[in-house]
């Protein structure tokens, strides 16, 4: 067993052969504090991780998704017609899936009217904090609260199932859609509108989207608004939590349907949401190195600092001795004892 001693790569020196100084003690304390700070910041960055963006092509078989919408339109509900169609040839009678509430048209506080929302991409933590699933409330009847107010607007809200292919969601007035024999009087048509919410996939009302809280005002009846969206499936992952949602990019056009065309074939007044689902999907995930990698790295950094500090200490000591003399030495100071030994 004593043969083990020969393997000892960390030989110790007896205390009597080691010189210590108060300045060395101070520098040691400062070093320990610095090491504690470095360790703390390294732990912080380890637990904080880093955000990794990956993109790929989804191999899942896709069929349907949903559009979540909540908007005010400056036309009474009875004249509105809402439907969706897409390249499969399907026509979705979404009128039956949505809730329609008559109300006096107004613009909620904080709505960006005739402008665009500030372009910003929500971060991973923000999305996960706001990813609280919800459902739309039931339809309410406000007519009892009318109080001589004109109910000239319509609140349309709900979730609509759609095929995950290129398509259009139309909000127009009656008389322009198929098999619709009612004709909307021109004075009732006004497509001023406010989007309180427009998102795809599971309904997370607190996550911001490009069309949320935006509005368009017009005094013309024959106005057509078209919103072009490219929808990108996005997954957010952090510490086991996973949120599947959809982001979208937005382009928009508006046009006035001329009197000669009004009510004939061609552009019709209304709001059209064109959607297209992209092939590429994005995965935003919170990543971190393995715990053992982190420990090895931390120890290496700390030992490197200790080594550098001890080297700097020796170098400074050497410089002080050379420049200012031995009494300025940081290491070899007299301990102020009287040398009154027996052999003096």
């Amino acid at each position: 067993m004593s043969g083990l001693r020969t393997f000892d790569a960390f030989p110790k020196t007896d205390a009597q052969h080691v010189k210590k100084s108060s300045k060395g003690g101070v520098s040691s304390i400062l070093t320990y504090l610095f090491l504690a700070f470095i360790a703390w910041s390294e732990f912080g960055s380890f637990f904080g991780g880093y955000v990794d963006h990956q993109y790929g092509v989804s191999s899942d078989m896709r069929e349907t998704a949903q559009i979540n919408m909540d908007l005010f339109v400056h036309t009474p509900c009875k004249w509105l017609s809402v439907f969706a169609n897409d390249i499969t040839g399907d026509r979705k009678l979404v009128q039956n899936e949505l809730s329609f509430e008559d109300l006096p048209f107004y613009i909620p506080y904080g709505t960006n009217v005739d402008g665009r929302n500030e372009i910003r991409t929500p971060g991973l933590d923000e999305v996960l904090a706001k990813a609280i699933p919800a459902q739309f409330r039931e339809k309410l009847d406000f007519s009892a609260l009318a109080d001589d107010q004109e109910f000239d607007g319509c609140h349309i809200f709900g979730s609509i199932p759609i095929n995950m292919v290129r398509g259009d969601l139309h909000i127009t007035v009656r008389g322009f859609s198929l098999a619709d024999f009612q004709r909307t009087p021109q004075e009732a048509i006004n497509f001023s509108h406010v989007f309180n919410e427009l998102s795809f996939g599971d309904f997370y009302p607190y996550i911001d989207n490009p069309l949320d809280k935006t509005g368009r005002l017009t005094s013309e009846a024959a106005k057509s608004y078209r919103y072009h969206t490219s929808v990108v499936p996005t997954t957010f992952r952090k510490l086991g939590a996973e949120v599947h949602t959809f982001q979208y990019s937005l382009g928009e056009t508006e046009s006035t349907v001329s009197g000669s065309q009004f009510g004939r074939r061609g552009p019709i007044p209304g709001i059209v949401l064109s959607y297209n689902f992209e092939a590429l999907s994005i995965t935003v995930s919170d990543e971190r190195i393995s715990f053992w990698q982190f420990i090895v790295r931390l120890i290496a950094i700390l030992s490197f600092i200790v080594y550098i500090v001890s080297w700097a200490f020796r170098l400074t000591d050497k410089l002080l001795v050379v420049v200012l003399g031995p009494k300025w030495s940081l290491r070899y100071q007299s301990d102020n004892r009287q040398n009154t030994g027996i052999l003096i």
Partner: protein
Amino acid sequence: MKKSTLLSIDAFAKTEEDVRIRTRTGGLITLSCVLVTFMLLFSEWRQLHKVVSRPELVVDRDRHLKLDLNMDVTFPHMPCYLLNMDILDSSGELQLDLLESGWSKTRLDSSGQSLGTENFKIGQQDRVEPTDENYCGPCYGAKDQSQNEQKPKEEWICCQTCEDVRTAYMDAQWAFFDGKDIEQCEREGYVEKVNKHINEGCRIKGKAKLNRIEGNLHFAPGKAYRNAQGHFHDISLYEKNSNLNLNHIVHHLSFGQQLEGDATESVSTAPLDGKIVSPDFDTHYHQFSYFVKIVPTRFEYLDGAKTETTQFSTTYHSRPVRGGRDSDHPNTVHSRKGFPSLYVFFEMSPLKVINKQQHAQTWSGFLLNCITSIGGILAVGTVLDKITYKAQRSLWGKKST
């Protein structure tokens, strides 16, 4: 430089051997450190030799390239002779001349067993010419033959084979059914063949080259024809047999070169493989559709080899061709158009994914990590040794170590 000057700048000061104390615990710690160091170095070595694929996104700038189509599909309730495949793109061209190699049609019995394979080129049929040189076959009103007597023989309008009659019917947009009572078809055994094989299935396998633009490929029963309204198929025989449908099994569908081995991990070059579509309701008048978005992809391997292929995402949809409200989703109204078929609509993405194979770590990174590991272990060893040494001294005195 003087020796004394060199000594004065020696940052690695040594302790005299006489005053150094070695302990058994120190030896154990050293051996443990060596063991752990070797483990860490081995893991670093493995990391150095680990191959990872890093994706890169670029705009696809390739021009004049064709898109390879690789397909292997089984139709359990559709006989081979009735099944047709067309490839159309957004230019309106029927892609018949782009077939790289012959496609094989394998006849299947009702249990899915093979009954024999024949190769065919899309748009080509075997002609069985009559033996009599003076024979001029009737076209049964599908073509005007009334002026034949006034013309020289080489200008006569004749339908010599069953296929000629069938083509004439197509041109006239008449339903051909199974060729019953048409002498050319009876002579060639076409009617007998049709009725004999009507309950068979068919497996189609092959490759083609497509233009890199939006388009579709589709399988449908009966011969194809076009008119002002669009592209259609003569489904008269199909309509007559209600047990026929386009339920299918996609054994393989991919666009571009096929990948070997590990490269296929985590990429969707063929996400439809193994897809079985066999609904538990009557699909005789049903159209099945796959909307495919193709993303060009290049794999760059460590040895410098490159493979140009594609990945794609798919949306599946099915609907009755006669339209009407969906039985499961009453708010969905299907359009009344088309014919029983299996469609694959494809469109190209302007973006390209480049998957580069590379080592997870560079040599310089490997060396740095090795040094870091060794330094870290030595530092831990030093601290542990100091702690144990001081603990032993305070607990058991100087001699116990």
